């Protein structure tokens, strides 16, 4: 795309630049079961289990409550069965645009996997820290550490960014919205060890 491109080109979407299918095709596990089938099996198992749970539970509910859940299961079950058939019996299904954006992968699967694990660990660590230390400590600290370690931002820049975020927390959420925060266990333990005098 160049700056001299005609306006009409803005309406014409570009072809997908990369596609993860060939990469995935190469990643086959033993016994010929592809990652695609394993991943989709997990999804189908989750959806199917929830349908069964909802239906069994709905047997004990009055009709007013049970009607819509049963309709949901009745709509979903045949399509679930069809999807299972498609997956295991390689039945033909037209493939097309799914109205969603998939992950895009390039030619560095190991690096992508490493970054995927890294960001997932960051999210889990951040959420654990929020639970343990509270939002006001965990979030600015999380941002500071992440941009310092992975973006190699300067200490001053990292600290400034963390302070801006802390300012947002205090200014918007504390002062403007009067948000109620959860009580972090660590602070409770500290309070238990060092009880305030009356």
């Amino acid at each position, binding site marked *: 795309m160049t700056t001299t491109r005609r306006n009409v080109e803005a309406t014409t*979407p570009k072809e997908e630049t990369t596609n993860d299918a060939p990469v995935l095709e190469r990643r086959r596990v033993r016994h010929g079961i592809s990652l695609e089938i394993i991943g989709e099996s997990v999804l189908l198992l989750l959806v199917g289990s929830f349908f069964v749970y909802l239906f069994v539970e709905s047997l004990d509910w009055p009709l007013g409550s049970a009607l819509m859940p049963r309709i949901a299961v009745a709509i979903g079950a045949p399509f679930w069965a069809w999807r299972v058939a498609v997956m295991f019996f390689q039945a033909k299904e037209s493939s097309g645009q799914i109205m969603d954006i998939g992950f895009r992968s390039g030619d560095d699967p190991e690096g992508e996997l490493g970054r995927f694990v890294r960001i997932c660990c960051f999210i889990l660590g951040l959420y654990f820290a929020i639970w343990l230390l509270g939002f006001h400590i965990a979030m600015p600290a999380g941002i500071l550490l992440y941009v310092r370690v992975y973006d190699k931002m300067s200490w001053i820049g990292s600290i400034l960014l963390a302070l801006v975020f802390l300012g947002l927390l205090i200014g918007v959420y504390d002062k403007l919205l009067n948000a109620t925060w959860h009580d972090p266990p660590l602070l409770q333990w500290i309070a238990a060890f060092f009880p305030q005098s009356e």
Partner: protein
Amino acid sequence: MLEAAIIAAERLFSPGPMLVMLIMIPISLISGMMPGGNLPIAVIVLGFAGYLDPWLTVPAVVFFLAASDITEPVPSILMGIPGARSAQATILDGYPMAQQGLAGVALGASYMCTLVVGVIGAAALLLALPISRELLKAFSSAEFFLLSLLGLLCVAIVSAGAFVKGVLTAAFGLAIAMIGFSPITGTVRASFGIDYLWDGVPLVPIVVGLFALPEAIDLVVANTPIARERLDTMLKDANRDVYRGMREALNHKWLLVRSSLIGTFVGMMPGVGSSAAHWIAYAQARHTEKGGLESFGKGDVRGVIAADSANNSVDGGTLIPTVVFGIPGSGGMAILLAILVLSGVQPGPAMLTQHLDLTISLVYIVAFANIIVVPIMLFAAPMIVRIAAVPPNVMAPIVICIVTLAAYQASYSIEDLFLVLGFAALGIFMKRYGWPRPPILIAVVLSEIVEKYLWLSINTYGFSMFARPQFLAIIAVMVLVMIVSLRLQSGATTALRDAAGAET
């Protein structure tokens, strides 16, 4: 009517209401750009409703809701994070455009739609006020049920090419929405024995988990800024891109008009409007625009135009059932309703007689918000698009923290975060294995309306609802929509197959 219109203008454009609207400008700009919705601030205004004149509180909240709606496409387009109330369909083409370095074009088109639809739509709404009341009186719960069902039907239309997965995920979304208290009998449903789930699954953690976190992860995994192409030119030509987007919106004027009419009409449907309108408009555009079946969802500016035109015209439309029937069309409208009641103004037919000036002022406020806020956003757009160029390792932690806060706002409970993690895992799997996520969102958003109106219709009419001409007319429209969309899909599939055959 003319006299009331003049009185409304005189009262609205007096120092008091003008001052509160000016105060609301920066608040709405910041709030609209924060993912997770803007209702908490509207609730703050509610706190003053008992003490202040309705001519101060009503302009404050309506201006705030309309103005923050204008800024809502920013996170959708630039970060792939749908807003809580609307701009959900905007993400489908807006975010791919940002990835292609066309964020300025998408924002320009979005704001131009907002301006045109906001001003012209408000004028049209003003003229339609008396007619719309008669039209709405002809509809009952049975017709409202069908219209909400039409929103769900869009799942099938929007999932063209992945019909099975689309309907399956929509059914899964409906099933998820069944968790918690039944609105019909009060029975606690499928809560897994967890007290937190008694109130159901809040929408914002679903949105954050399904959409925002997987997009943030994608950003880091790809190790590029959001704009993966033409990064330099995007920054250099930001002004030109925004201008080009504005022209694109005007070039597709019929799409803009069509989508805004859909938005206004569906917006008038109590409870259905803000949730379904943009999806219906997006689905119709995908099927009626040339090449839409192939290009929508990959970064087609027409997708942004359709979704945003409907989004913005909904604002005007939802005002009608709220003030005329006292039935709020969205969370924001529910707060407006509460403000009216607290201010001593009883919503209902009297709003078109006794308080006609106040009703007309609502339309003025929506138009005024567009006239004031859109130029600000257009001026700021070249700076806003720079977000798309922020390095992924800076962008990702900030986005993750902001959306986490948005999710926590849902019920101020730490369990919200566990829910986010659960839906994030689901979203990652769905994104990775090609399952469309929007149908879950559509189903969750519309489920309560569908369930409520279904039960009401059954109890009120039973099978006799099929004898209602209005009911049959809407069924005919739905069947027509299905037939046309299936035919178009079939044609597009054949064309794609032929093209693939020609290449090999």
